[in-house]
Structure formats: structure tokens, C-alpha cells
């Protein structure tokens, strides 16, 4: 059973990735402008036909579209993600430096946002105290409503104005290079992102918890005289955790796609910015391969979520 499950998952995954590749390729070509107009702007109007042809060769866009797709896919299958049209650097190298930034940012934001969201959700759902519920809900709504670019800009401006502090903006310092240096670059952006995560998780937790708390087995447990703390943790929260895990997975997968706005404000060289710049420059190989990497990340997160279900809820193991 397990092997069949794995096999079908794997086949589905490959189909999904191929679909993603095709869609990205088509959409990229459908938007107006190519690498030449992106690089030269109105100066591209002054190119002679032979100059244009030479540039098309330089950017690898002189081949018919199906050929371009096939040659790119052929490389990807061999584990080579292609070469950036703009800088001539291997895409593997570009994605390789951007991905750790984004992954760390996403993990950090989740580490802060999920516990905070669950705690606030419990706070809102557990009491009969409507004021507390209302207040927590209002905080969550505010967290959802304030856009990242506002919060991020405010954080940067306040830090600079009040404390003369500005996140280090040299090259990215990895966690292994310097823990403090890395944290000084990553912490504030992670905090900004975690606000949205916490707000979403809070709302999911609240509704899931409230629903389970009404269930018969909770009343039974209470009747048996179990301590309220034990009931909440072992019985209610455990049973309410499936939607929380689902929502966390969705949030995490979304963050892996790159958090363009926060990366721009805090000038972090993550996947979001790499994608954004490459789209503006019509750097096709970079966009195509980076999106594929994001898609793989999303699929892996989904897989992890599915496996977690099986741990949390024995019923899903048999189906």
C-alpha cells in the first residue's frame, strides 16, 4: 500500500511540475517585450536588423519557441538549470544563493508566527470572555489588514530614526558564517512576515478549537474529571490541529515562493527578488528554473503536511 501511495504521489508530482514548467514558459512569452527591449528600452529602436539578429542569438531567443522549451527542459532533466541571459552565470548558482535566504526567512517567520498564532487563537477561543475574544480577533484582523510594505517600511524607518540602526546590507551573511550577523539581517523581516502568518493561524486555531471544544468526547473527558489543562492540550488542541497544520503548510509553501516585498524593503537577496528582477529583465532561463524550484518546494511541503496528518490522525492512515 505504501509503495503504491508513494508511486502515485511521485507521478502526480512530476505531472504537476511539468504543468508548471509549460505554464510559466507560455506566460513568459505571452507578456509583451523580450530580453532585448527589456535591456535596451527605447534604444532597441535604433538597432539595425543585423544587430537585432546578433542580440537574439546572444540571448538565445533566435530559435523557434518549441525548440527553446525543449532545449531548456532537456538541460533541466540533466540537472542543469541553464545560464542567465543577463549575467551569464549558471542559474544553479543564482538559485543556490537565493534559496537559503528565502528558506531561512520562511522558517524563521513560521517559528515566530505559528506559536504566536496558536497562542492567540487559544486565548480567543478558550474563554467565555467575549471581550478577550474580541480584542484578540481585532489584533488578528489588524495583522491581516496592514500590508507588509507598510509594516516593513515603518519598521525600517523607526529603527533608523530612533535607534540609528539599519539592517546590515552588505552581502548576505549565512547562519554558519556569523549567527549574530545573520540574525541582524533576518530577524526584522521575519518578524514582519510573521505578523501575517500569526494572524492567519490565529483565526484557524480559534475556529478549529471552538468547534472541537463543543464535541461530545470533550464533555465526556470533563465528566471523567480530567484536569482542564490536560483536556485542552491532549484532547481539544490535538484534535483541532489538522486544520492548523494544513494552514501552516499553505503559509509555508507560500513563503517559499519568495516574499518579494519584504525582500525589497530589507534588501535581502532572496528568491522573490531574484524572480522579480529576472521577470523585469525577461531573463527566461532564470525565471523558468526558479519557478520550478519553488514548485518543487511547494510539493515537498505538501508531502510533509500529508505525512504529518498520518502522525496526528490515525484515521488518515487507513484511507
Amino acid at each position, binding site marked *: 500500500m505504501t509503495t503504491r501511495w508513494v508511486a502515485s504521489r511521485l507521478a502526480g508530482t512530476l505531472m504537476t511540475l511539468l504543468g508548471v514548467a509549460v505554464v510559466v514558459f507560455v506566460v513568459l512569452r505571452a507578456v509583451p517585450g523580450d530580453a532585448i*527591449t527589456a*535591456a*535596451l528600452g527605447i534604444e532597441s529602436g535604433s*538597432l539595425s536588423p*543585423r544587430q537585432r539578429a546578433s542580440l537574439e542569438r546572444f540571448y538565445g531567443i533566435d530559435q523557434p519557441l518549441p525548440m527553446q522549451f525543449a532545449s531548456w527542459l532537456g538541460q533541466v532533466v540533466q540537472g542543469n538549470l541553464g545560464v542567465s541571459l543577463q549575467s551569464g552565470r549558471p542559474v544553479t548558482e543564482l538559485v543556490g544563493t537565493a534559496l537559503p535566504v528565502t528558506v531561512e526567512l520562511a522558517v524563521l517567520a513560521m517559528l*515566530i508566527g505559528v506559536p504566536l498564532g496558536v497562542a492567540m487563537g487559544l486565548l480567543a477561543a478558550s474563554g467565555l470572555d467575549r471581550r478577550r475574544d474580541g480584542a484578540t480577533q481585532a489584533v488578528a484582523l489588524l495583522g491581516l489588514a496592514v500590508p507588509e510594505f507598510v509594516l516593513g517600511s515603518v519598521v525600517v*524607518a523607526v529603527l533608523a*530614526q530612533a535607534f540609528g540602526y539599519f539592517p546590515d*546590507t552588505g552581502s548576505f551573511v549565512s547562519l554558519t558564517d556569523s549567527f549574530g550577523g545573520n540574525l541582524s539581517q533576518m530577524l526584522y523581516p521575519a518578524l514582519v512576515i510573521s505578523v501575517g502568518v500569526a494572524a492567519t493561524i490565529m483565526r484557524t486555531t480559534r475556529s478549529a478549537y471552538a468547534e472541537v471544544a463543543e464535541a461530545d468526547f470533550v464533555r465526556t473527558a470533563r465528566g471523567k474529571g480530567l484536569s482542564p489543562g490536560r483536556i485542552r492540550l491532549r484532547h481539544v488542541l490535538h484534535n483541532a490541529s489538522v486544520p492548523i497544520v494544513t494552514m501552516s503548510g499553505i503559509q509555508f509553501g507560500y513563503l517559499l515562493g519568495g516574499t518579494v516585498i519584504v525582500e525589497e524593503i530589507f534588501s535581502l537577496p532572496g528568491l522573490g527578488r531574484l524572480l522579480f528582477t529576472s521577470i523585469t529583465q525577461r531573463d527566461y532561463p532564470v525565471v523558468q528554473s526558479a519557478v520550478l524550484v519553488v514548485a518543487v518546494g511547494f510539493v515537498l511541503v505538501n508531502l510533509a503536511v500529508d505525512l504529518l496528518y498520518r502522525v496526528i490522525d490515525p484515521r488518515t492512515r487507513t484511507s
Partner: protein
Amino acid sequence: MTTLDRRLVAGALAAIVLLPAAACSPAGSGDEDGSGAGGQDATVVVARTGDIDVLDPHKATAFQTVQTLSLVYDRLVTTDAKGTIVPALAEKWELAPDATSVTFTLRDGVTWHDGDPFTAADVKATIERILDEESAAVARSNLAMISGVETPDDKTVSLTLSSPNAAILYALSSTNASILHDKDITAATVDREPNGTGPFRFGEWAQGQQLTLEPNSKYFGGAPKIGRLQFRVIPSESSILAGMRAGRFQLAAVSDPSIAEQADGSDRMELVKQPTLAYHALMLNGRRGPLKDVRVRQAIACAIDRQQVVDTAAFGDGQVTGPITSPAFTYDELEGLPCTPGDTAAARQLLVDAGQGDGFTLTTIVQTGEYATAGGEAENLQAQLGEIGVKLDLQQLASATYVKQWLAADFDAAVALNGGSSDPYLMYGRYFTEGGSLAGPAGLESKELADLLVQGNGTTDDGARQEIYAELQQKLLELSPWVWMFRGDAYYLVGDDLTGFQARPDEALSSLGTASAGAG
């Protein structure tokens, strides 16, 4: 019942409060870039919103790329802050009076960053590379009249021109005409390993993050006084301002007037406003509908109060300008128009005379995301022209779409920010001469304009050129193919610890070659 809640909440809050505090200490004290050190070794950090895109100066058009590579490479000649041609790699030159040939005497003792001596062979190879269509050099269209390159000796280069061209010196002063080492051209390493003669050597490049230039101690103009030049990519201008306030950058270039407004009077920095050569215009397509009638175009030119556009769209930062923005060729910005801008009564009368008294609609393209004032300009123009019954149907387009429609002249009107030049011919030759590469988007063919441009470019006599280009400016205003509005300001945030920085109309950062850090 509530103990668990309290523990959970307290834990979460502790995580939020303590983590930043823990992170602050290393960051707050970390001044590893040495910005406070001062003196010969001081690093000057320049913040800007975008990274360079290519390394080949002949293919560079992005603003950041041109700015950077012009510090690494030299031209035969260059311009000073007033737009006058001054020596660079060429010490002397002689332009034939009929402007059909030019001979350069090259500077002695110049070396490439890799140590090789600079010779006439490098110049010859460079010019040939620019003219070769295979290399797709953007300067080719301005230099295509070069029909021969001779190097009688190691220190002399003669160019023969197929038609008179007084603008050749200006064309050669462009970063796109940077002189390359012949060896690098042969080895085809130009777009990977920059090797110039300029005041800075290309150092390390972490794409999308930062680029380091090292001082060239053997620079013929004198070694730079700063220890190292670092360009940081900070995509958000409000973050750039925050970094300046925190003293992390010594220099920043910003474009958003509202950011400049906030920076004005801030601690640790000075705001420098520099009018640029680039100009904001409403381009009209005189090949379409009512715009074919010169009176209609004049009516539009008359109805627009330029200062109002500057005040509403650019926070008042900008100078009302006529067509020619070249510093050495300044003329009255309105002479030639049949009325005073903002005179709506006169404008309405012109429309009535043209039989367009009931007004009409113009499909107007506006570029979004490239520069901050485009949207504001478009809305103000819409309001002002509404007064005379000319309705602007605004189409806000992303850059790529805008460029595509602009090049295809697929618009009635275009809100545009066009590049200027120190030479009037380089500004308008490509729009208004016969066969000009941008004759389509120019929207109007005029023999009078073409003749004036060719005449002005055909003589080296300064007095004659002044007169001809004065007439060109008047004629452009009279025919009103476009409505010239204003030159915007480029904003620089200059840190207190940087001395000797000088902003230039062409937005070059050449003064960093002589600036020093650590005085503040």
C-alpha cells in the same frame, strides 16, 4: 484553566521581545565596512535601487550600468560639468573645419588595469567593434558615419567620416564609446572580465547585492582618494533614506520627490538637487487625426501651464524647459510658440480656427513603474487639457508594453521622459532627420527641422552652430510636434562624511574619482 493560556502567551511574547534585543548587539556595533574610519582607506558605500545588468560598456543602457562602467573605462574625450568636451584618453584632437575627419593624439603612459600599455591599436579595435553589427553596440547609430580608422603611429588615430558630423566628439564621449583593450576584444572577454583604464578597477560583484570597485593607483588623472567604492542594491528608496539616516551609506541616488522631501534637513546628510539633461515631454503623434493640424498641436502646447505640472507632479522640483537641454546651447524655452502657455482662451481660439472647437479624445500612453512622476504628470495634463475640450484617455502601461507601443508609434500622445545630450544633434537627429532611427515615435516629419539639424551638424564653427540650433529650438516650438515641459531633478543624498562629490547634469559619478571620505 487560564494558566496554560498565560504560559503560551508569555512564551510567545518573550520570543518576540527577546530575539530582536539579542540580534541588535552584534548589528549595532558591526561597522565592518569601515564607513567611520576615514582617510585613505575609507570605503565609500553608494546605495541605489538597481544593480548593473551587463558588463560590456558597448551594450550598456541601464542607468546604473552606465554610471558604474564609466568609472572603470575611459573614452577618447569626455565632457566637464558644463557639457564642454575635455581631454581623456586623447590629449589633443583636431576636427577638420568641414567636419569630415578628426585626428586624435593619444595620452602617453596610460596603462590598462591588467598592466598592458594603452595604444592606438586599442582605439582602432574599439571603433571597429562598435561599427561591427555583430557586436550589437548601441553607439553604432551615432558613429555609423565613420568610414575609416587610421593609426599612422602608436599615439595617433584618424577617423574619416562619410558625412560631416560635428557631434562626433560628443558621440565619442559617451560611455557606450568606451575604449576597450584590443586583446580583450579578440579574446571575447569584454562581457565577463572588465578591464579598463579608468579611475577604478572592477572588483567583486555579488549580483543583485553589491559591487565593489578598487581604486586604480596608476590612473592618469591621479589615484582616487577613497579606499574602495561599493555599490549596494537597496530596492526600496525609503530603505535607502533609512540607511542614510543610520549612517550606513555615504551617497545615494534617489528619484522619488517625496523621498527627497523627507531627506531634506535630515541629520547626517545633505540633499543635492541636480537638474538633468533628460526632459519630460508630452509627445504628440502628428500623423494621426486632429493632431495633423499644426494649430491643434499649438493649442495643446498653449493650454499647458508647465510650472503647474512641475508643482503637482514633481513637488516643484524641476525647471521648465524648451526642446534643447544641452548646457552649452541654452535658448528661450518659449520663443516660437504663438502664445503664452496656460493661456486657455488663446488655445481654445486655435482649436476653433482648426475646426476642432468641440474637442476630441487622445489615446495617451503613460509608463508606470519606471519613474515616480509619470502618473502625476498624466493626471495634471488630463485636467489642464480638459479645460479646452481635449480629453486624454490615459493608458497606464508597464514598461515593456509602453516601449513596444512607443516604438511602433501606436499612440496619439505619450507622456515621456526622454534622454538628453550635451549636443543638440544627438538629442534630435534620430527623431527629426530623414531616416532617423526614432522617426516613427517622433510623430512628425519636417524638412525644415531635418535641414537645420544637418546644417548644425555640418559645421564646426561655434557661432554658426549656436545660431542654427537657436533656430531649431524656435522651429520645434512653432511646429509643436511635442509639448516640452520640464527637466526633472536628480536627487543625491550626500553623507556628511563624503567630501568633494559633485552632481552633474549627465548624472555621471565621475567626481568620486577625486572625492574623499571621512571628513564628517
